[in-house]
């Protein structure tokens, strides 16, 4: 059974600091997703990582994927308050060749303090 673990579950950081969220998964998968969720809102897609060694960056966020280590990281550079949200990673499994199922991590609640 595919399991996805995120850590930390909660992260309080000061503005201007750097930090990394980790996402480990238990079985082979070549695709990994990062989503952001603001309080009371739905999930917004941040990154889709499709192969080993993939790296994507958007503003202060950078995501990478190491399929051999079954590890993805979401790195935050010089955090700002607007980045406060819950971040989820999700790993792709293919069902029946036509549908993908996502298995989500438990999420990391990020609080950026001024």
């Amino acid at each position, binding site marked *: 059974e595919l399991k996805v673990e995120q850590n930390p579950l909660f992260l309080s950081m000061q503005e201007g600091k750097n930090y990394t969220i980790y996402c480990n998964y238990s079985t082979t998968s070549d695709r990994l*997703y990062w989503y952001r969720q603001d309080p009371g809102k739905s*999930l917004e897609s941040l990154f889709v990582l499709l192969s080993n060694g993939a790296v994507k960056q958007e503003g202060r966020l950078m995501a990478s994927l190491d399929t051999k280590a079954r590890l993805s990281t979401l790195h935050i550079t010089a955090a700002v308050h607007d980045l406060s949200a819950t971040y989820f990673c999700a790993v792709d499994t293919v069902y029946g060749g036509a549908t993908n199922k996502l298995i989500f991590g438990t999420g990391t609640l990020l609080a950026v303090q001024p």
Partner: protein
Amino acid sequence: DVKVTQSSRYLVKRTGEKVFLECVQDMDHENMFWYRQDPGLGLRLIYFSYDVKMKEKGDIPEGYSVSREKKERFSLILESASTNQTSMYLCASSHRYPSSYEQYFGPGTRLTVT
């Protein structure tokens, strides 16, 4: 823009009631999904559908059923609501693998069963 809409943002129902949650997508996606989100547990897949009238159980289907009579619409049914079904319910849709795999989420329905 991809749009996934859900029939209600907030819903309060009594124990034993039959509850319908509706989801509509306007991107001609083949796949549709229902998740529930609970604190500390992330998102868990209840049911999904890869075609009209087709449905597959996800990880936690007990107490739920689904209906997909039209491609754009996917309904989640709680036959007899119970308090442990109080949760946030999220609908998502995607194209059929491998043409595209990213899932797009609706705004969510927060269901309270009293």
